[in-house]
């Protein structure tokens, strides 16, 4: 799936790497005991360490290391049993220490892989360069007072995992697929809630372009702090176009940091001053290097859930789903769980169909996600069971489903209450068939005269007379034997 930009001089290819900042799920901050709960009042989740009071010292939160290792394992990455926290020095009002504690030369997680599920059902691997842990900064608020800025340190010290991809991504679509897949993996692992709106996941996008077929990597531009999948895709689109324009006009793309403005649909260079930092990294002398052994890794490995790729393979190989359906179902952990519960003891393919077409469609209309579905997984499975054992027809099932959406009732109860049970008693059906034939002598004669196709009209009449409850197969058989037999 090559994405090419047609320039005036020829086709151009886009080269993309993503740096994702994912807030790790931990009870307390990376180096202090302050809570990380979202929605606390300004400066409520701030300890003496977070406020960088004189003499305060950081102590590593072991949970953060566990979450990083867990994530590394989910990314099929090398886990580094030795890693080092360093200080990244710069001044900003919401950076209390005057440095951010981060990992630089020795990150806790090394190279790994994320497999993208593309729209056509195919897959493509994107390399992970590294994952390292770092502290988040606080928040500066500039609109509360005409003269002063306000600082909220609740986020200061919160655990971030920076996940850096290799420049393996080649289109905005792949970038989108990468972010969605990464988010799915993090959510499966329970290491990040992946909520981009609340800022628990943010992306810096590195973009460069090169003539189609070239091997060189040209100067890249970093588009900072993009906070939705859609914006990432748009930012790549417009930034790549811009760069092609610059090269084709005989100019040169300069290495710089830019910001994406979704309103204007363009990227803009940040002031030089904002990124001309010399961060003076050096190992934080307040902290010892992080060391752990294989047992630590094995203990975490033992608690890993089944991840999307494994699940997808199982859905395809053991449950007979198509690659596309399997991909859709595993994209989100809640959906996969819902599906597995609904498919328990049922025909998996039929459940998958009902889920991806009927339920997704309905939820979409209601503006709800699967966690809020009025139809429970057990009920959806029961509905498929009722179809399979011929209690109801597929057509009736659609009516039952509508009722389930409205009332959240069990399909069996709805069928019972409304008397929708399929009629399979041959005698009862035969009586209706006889009545319909008797009521329509001209049409019957027509069929008997050789117009086979008119039998369909009779099927419709019988179904109508039975209020849709007659078993269509039986109706068909009876009509054939009576009119043609």
């Amino acid at each position, binding site marked *: 799936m090559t994405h090419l930009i047609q320039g005036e001089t020829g086709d151009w290819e886009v080269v993309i790497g993503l740096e994702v900042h994912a807030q790790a799920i931990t009870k307390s901050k990376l180096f202090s005991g302050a809570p990380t709960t979202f929605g606390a009042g300004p400066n409520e989740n701030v300890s003496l360490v977070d406020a960088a*009071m*004189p*003499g305060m*010292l950081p102590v590593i939160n072991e949970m953060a290391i566990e979450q990083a290792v867990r994530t590394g394992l989910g990314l099929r990455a090398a886990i580094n049993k030795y890693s080092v926290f360093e200080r990244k*020095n710069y001044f900003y009002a919401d950076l*209390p220490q*005057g*440095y951010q504690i981060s990992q630089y030369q020795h990150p806790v997680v090394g190279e790994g892989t994320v497999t993208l599920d593309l729209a056509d059902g195919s897959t493509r691997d994107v390399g992970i360069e590294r994952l390292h842990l770092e502290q988040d900064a606080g928040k500066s608020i500039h609109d509360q007072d005409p003269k002063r800025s306000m600082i909220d340190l609740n986020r200061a010290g919160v655990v971030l995992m920076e996940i850096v991809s290799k420049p393996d991504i080649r289109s905005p679509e792949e970038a989108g697929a990468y972010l969605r897949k990464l988010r799915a993996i993090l959510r499966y692992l329970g290491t990040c809630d992946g909520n981009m709106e609340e800022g628990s996941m943010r992306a810096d996008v590195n973009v460069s372009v090169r003539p189609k077929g070239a091997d060189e990597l040209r100067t890249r531009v970093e588009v900072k702090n993009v906070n939705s999948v859609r914006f990432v895709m748009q930012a790549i689109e417009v930034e790549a176009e811009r760069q092609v324009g610059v090269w084709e006009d005989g100019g040169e793309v300069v290495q710089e940091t830019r910001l994406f403005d979704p309103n204007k649909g363009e990227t803009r260079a940040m002031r030089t001053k904002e990124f001309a930092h010399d961060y003076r990294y050096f190992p934080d002398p*307040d902290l010892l290097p992080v060391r752990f052994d294989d047992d630590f890794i094995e203990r975490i490995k033992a608690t890993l859930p089944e991840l999307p790729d494994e699940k997808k393979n199982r859905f395809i190989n053991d449950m007979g789903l198509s690659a596309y359906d399997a991909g859709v179902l595993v994209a989100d952990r809640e959906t996969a769980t819902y599906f597995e519960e609904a498919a328990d003891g049922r025909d998996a393919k039929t459940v998958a169909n009902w889920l991806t077409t009927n339920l997704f469609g309905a939820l979409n209309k209601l503006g709800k996600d699967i966690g809020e579905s009025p139809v429970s997984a057990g009920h959806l499975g029961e509905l498929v069971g009722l179809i399979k054992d011929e209690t109801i027809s597929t057509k009736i099932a659609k009516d039952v489903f509508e009722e389930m959406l409205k009332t959240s009732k069990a399909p069996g109860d709805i069928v019972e209450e409304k008397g929708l049970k399929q009629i399979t008693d041959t005698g009862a059906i035969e009586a209706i068939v006889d009545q319909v034939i008797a009521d329509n002598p001209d049409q019957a004669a027509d069929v008997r005269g050789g117009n086979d196709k008119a039998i369909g009209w009779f099927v419709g009449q019988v179904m109508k007379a039975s209020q849709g409850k007659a078993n269509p197969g039986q109706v068909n058989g009876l009509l054939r034997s009576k009119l043609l037999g």
Partner: protein
Amino acid sequence: MSDLRDWTIATASDAMEKGEVSSVELTDAFIAAMEAGRTLNAFITETPELARERAAASDERRKNGDARGPMDGIPIGMKDLFCTEGVKTTAASHILDNFVPTYESTVSGNLRDAGAVMLGKTNLDEFAMGSANITSYFGSVKNPWTPEGANANLVPGGSSGGSVAAVSGGLAIAATGTDTGGSIRQPASFTGLVGMKPTYGRCSRWGTVAFASSLDQAGPLTRTVEDAAIMLQAMASHDPKDSTSLPMVLPDCRAACTRDAKGLRVGIPKEYTLDGMPEEIQKLWNQGAQWFKEMGAEIVEVSLPHTKYALPTYYIVAPAEASSNLARYDGVRYGFRKDGASLDEMYELTRGEGFGAEVQRRVLIGTYVLSAGYYDAYYVKAQQVRTLIAEDFKKIFADVDVLLTPTAPSAAFAEGDKMDDPIAMYLNDVFTVPASLAGLPAISVPGGVDKDGLPLGLQLITGVCQEETLFRAASALEMAAGFEARP
């Protein structure tokens, strides 16, 4: 009460135990001395009320048979680098001159819990950066010692200058110090006191204003080696709040003070002989070796080949860490702030006015050596040399028990000397810095006086966590030297 300089922790503790004196009486006497001795400028903040309160509580405990050990009821000075709950903590800097912590440092908290009575916060070089206590925002400290037949004001050494002036001047029985490159040992040498720096990690750094994290260690400043052992025992602890704190218990150092030096192998590192070092210091050093020999120790000449790189290494590592540690003093959350038209201008004005010249010099040096393009040549190289220095010691301590060296290359000098020459000032640390870089325990013991009657210290160094051996050798040296001089 007789000469307050007669009191040691051990004698005061005994006297209180026997009911000969109460903590309140002792404390009142020292408060009076502290007030009478203000010309020394040893204290930045006096806390007489708090002291009386704690002394009374101590007496109450003792009356009920709940005395907490030998530090209970002892009036001490607290270096103003330790954060003390509800008591202004300045680090002798304008930038913190209004800062009152809501928390107590682990070391001062340990002392408080042991019953020690804090008389006040002692003066120091700003952020503990200096060797003469002349960089304090609150003015320089005067050494209680004066050269015989002269009137010059001498510096007390630094950075724990206020603490040593207080103890040697009889304003406190003992005091806390911190040592980054020699800030306990050098001023002890300049004032005829015992100054001890434990193994890095023995005393928690939590709540102590940081200078250079990988070097900073708290320790006692006392009149006797035994007192140093008693006080260290109260200060040291494993502290989960300091990741570099040693997870082990300090052995019984006071008991070690009763053992003799017989059979000790005492190393004399030849690299500690400096060109142009005063003859008296060389003489005292030789004398020290002779004393050990006479006490049945074995003297071994040893070599620590990387010693000559220690001082330059120290003056890269310490400023580098300091430049980053001091970044938090930005006027945003606490301390001194000078408003500006922009955030950057506020930083410039706040830090430009809030920090003194020496602090600014070290922040600049540190920023420079960590900068892109210089990091590998300076900081990385310095760390490599530091490893080599530590290895030198490790090798030597496989062979000898303790090293004997001078503490400082000179006796106390006059205020004004070396002030315009930072390098000459930095040379004060030449003998103390190697042990700091290697994280080793070291102690300065008064050995004698120079021709002007000024005290000179001898330094002992042992391997990591070998405090027992250090105190054993130090007591023997103390006894041999029989130092009795007073300011």
